[in-house]
C-alpha cells in the first residue's frame, strides 16, 4: 500500500532519514505542506516523521505544524483525538514550530476576516491572538525580505500566502519579526507581527519551508538539541 506523503515524487525512493542521532521531529500530517517541512528538517539533521495518530506523538523531541487550512487541520485533530495529547505535550515543554495555519492553531484566539473570533478548534498553547487571512485574499499574497534578530546571514526571504498576522501578544511572547507591506495603492499599512516565540514555541505567519532557506528550521532543531529555545 502507498505510504506516499502528498507531493512526493512518483519515481524513486523516499528521501532517507539522515543517519545518526538527530532529534525526532514530528510533522503533523493531517493536511497541508507536510512534505516541505519533512525535507527541510531532514536537511538540517533532524529525524523527521509524518504523524497523524495520537500513539505516534509519544516519541517526539519536537513538533512542526505545517501550512494548510487551519480549520481542516483543527477539525481532523479534534476528531482523531490529537488535540488533548498535543496540548499536554506542549504544556509540558515539547518544542514546537507552527507556520501559517500552524501559527493559528498554536494561538489562544483566531479572528476571522470580520474581526470576530472564528470559534474553530485551537491548541491555545501560545498567548497570541492571530488574525486569519489578515493581509487579504490570494491576489494579495506576497514575498518580502525580513530582518530577524539572531538570524545571521542577511535578510530572510519570506513567502506569505493568504497569511495571518499576530494581532496581540501576551507578556511572555517575544516578537521576532514584523512586516509592513504596502496596500494596493502603495501606502504603508503599519508593522504587523509575523514571527514570535513563547518559551519553546515558535510561530511564523509565513512559510520558511517554501524557499529552501533553512535558517529558521536550523535554529529550531539546534535549540531542541541544546535543550532550550
Amino acid at each position, binding site marked *: 500500500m502507498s505510504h506516499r506523503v502528498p507531493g512526493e515524487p512518483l519515481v524513486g525512493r523516499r528521501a532517507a532519514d539522515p543517519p545518526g542521532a538527530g532529534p525526532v521531529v514530528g510533522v503533523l500530517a493531517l493536511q497541508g505542506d507536510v512534505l516541505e517541512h519533512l525535507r527541510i528538517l531532514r536537511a538540517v539533521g533532524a529525524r523527521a516523521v509524518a504523524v497523524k495518530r495520537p500513539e505516534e506523538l509519544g516519541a517526539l523531541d519536537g513538533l512542526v505544524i505545517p501550512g*494548510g487550512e487551519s480549520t481542516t487541520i483543527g477539525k481532523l485533530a479534534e476528531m482523531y483525538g490529537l488535540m488533548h495529547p498535543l496540548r499536554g505535550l506542549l504544556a509540558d515543554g515539547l518544542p514546537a514550530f507552527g507556520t501559517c495555519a500552524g501559527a493559528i492553531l498554536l494561538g489562544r484566539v483566531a479572528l476571522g476576516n470580520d474581526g470576530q473570533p472564528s470559534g474553530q478548534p485551537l491548541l491555545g498553547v501560545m498567548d497570541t491572538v492571530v488574525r486569519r487571512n489578515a493581509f487579504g485574499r490570494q491576489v494579495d499574497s506576497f514575498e518580502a525580505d525580513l530582518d530577524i534578530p539572531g538570524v545571521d546571514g542577511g535578510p530572510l526571504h519570506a513567502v506569505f500566502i493568504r497569511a495571518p498576522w499576530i494581532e496581540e501578544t501576551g507578556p511572555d511572547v517575544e516578537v521576532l519579526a514584523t512586516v509592513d507591506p504596502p496596500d494596493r495603492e502603495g501606502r504603508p499599512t503599519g508593522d504587523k507581527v509575523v514571527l514570535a516565540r513563547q518559551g519553546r514555541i515558535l510561530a511564523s505567519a509565513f512559510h520558511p519551508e517554501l524557499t529552501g532557506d533553512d535558517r529558521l528550521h536550523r535554529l529550531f532543531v539546534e535549540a531542541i538539541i541544546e535543550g532550550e529555545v
Partner: protein
Amino acid sequence: MTEQTQVGTARVKRGLAEMLKGGVIMDVVTPDQAKMAEEAGAVAVMALERVPADIRRDGGVARMSDPDMIDGIVAAVSIPVMAKARIGHFAEAQVLQALGVDYVDESEVLTPADEAHHIDKHAFTVPFVCGATNLGEALRRISEGAAMVRSKGEAGTGNVVEAVRHMRAITGGIRRLATLGGDELYAEAKELRAPVDLVREVAAAGRLPVVLFTAGGIATPADAALMMQLGADGVFVGSGVFKSGDPAKRARAIVEATTYFNDPDVVAKVSRGLGEAMVGINLDTLDPSQRLATRGW
C-alpha cells in the same frame, strides 16, 4: 519601513496549491453549501451555479457564475474560494480576478470559448488550476502558467473510471520520462507536444512542478482513497457530495478518507451509514458528444 514586496509570483501562486495538499475541494452552489463544506473540513470550495451533474442534465451553454453568487460564497467562508472560467475565456478570468476569487479553474465543465487557445495564465495575479487527461496536456497547461493541475475524470458522472484512467496516464507518463536518457527527451517532448525544458524538469524531479489533484467522478470515501494511493495530492469533489443522500456526512467522510487514505480501517469506518451515493452514469451509455474531458487542446 515599507518593505519591497512582490505579489503574483509563481512561488506565491503554486504555493497556495501546496497548502491545499492532502485536502478536499468541494463544488458548492449556495453560501449554505459553502458553510457546510467548510464545517466538514474542506480546504477550499469551488463556487458555481450548477454542479456538473445538473449542467449535464440541463444542457445549453455553461458559463462563468453570476458575480453576486460568487460574492455570497466568498463572504460565507474563511477557506479559499475557487471559481470556473470557460476554456480560453480570458475576460471571464479577468472578472473572477477582479472579484477576488483565490483560484480560477479554466474548466472543461463549462462550454469552451476557444477551440484552439487556452488562457495565457502568466498574465494574471490570481493562480489557475487546469484539467488534464495525460502528461502532455498537463505540461501544456503548466507552460501556459497553470499553478496547479487536476486530472479531469468525467465530471458529473459519479463514476471514477475516467479519473483513474487520467491519473494513471499522468503518473505513468512521469514514470516513463524518468527512464529515458537525456538525448531521448527531445523526441519525447515532441511526442508530448510540450516544451523540452519542462519535460526535462519532470524527468529529473519524478513529479510535476506543480501540485496534482484529481477530479471528475469521485463519489465515495473509497474513491478518494483510491485516487490518493494512485498519486493524487488531493481531491476535487463535484456532484458527489450534494447529489447524495446525506451531504454533510458524506463530505466529512471524504475528508477523513483523503487524510487517512492508506488506512483501510478508517476508510471502512467512515464509509458506514452514508445513505445513498449519487446514482452515477456508466460511461459506455454516455454519448461521445456528452464527454467533457475531450474539451481542452
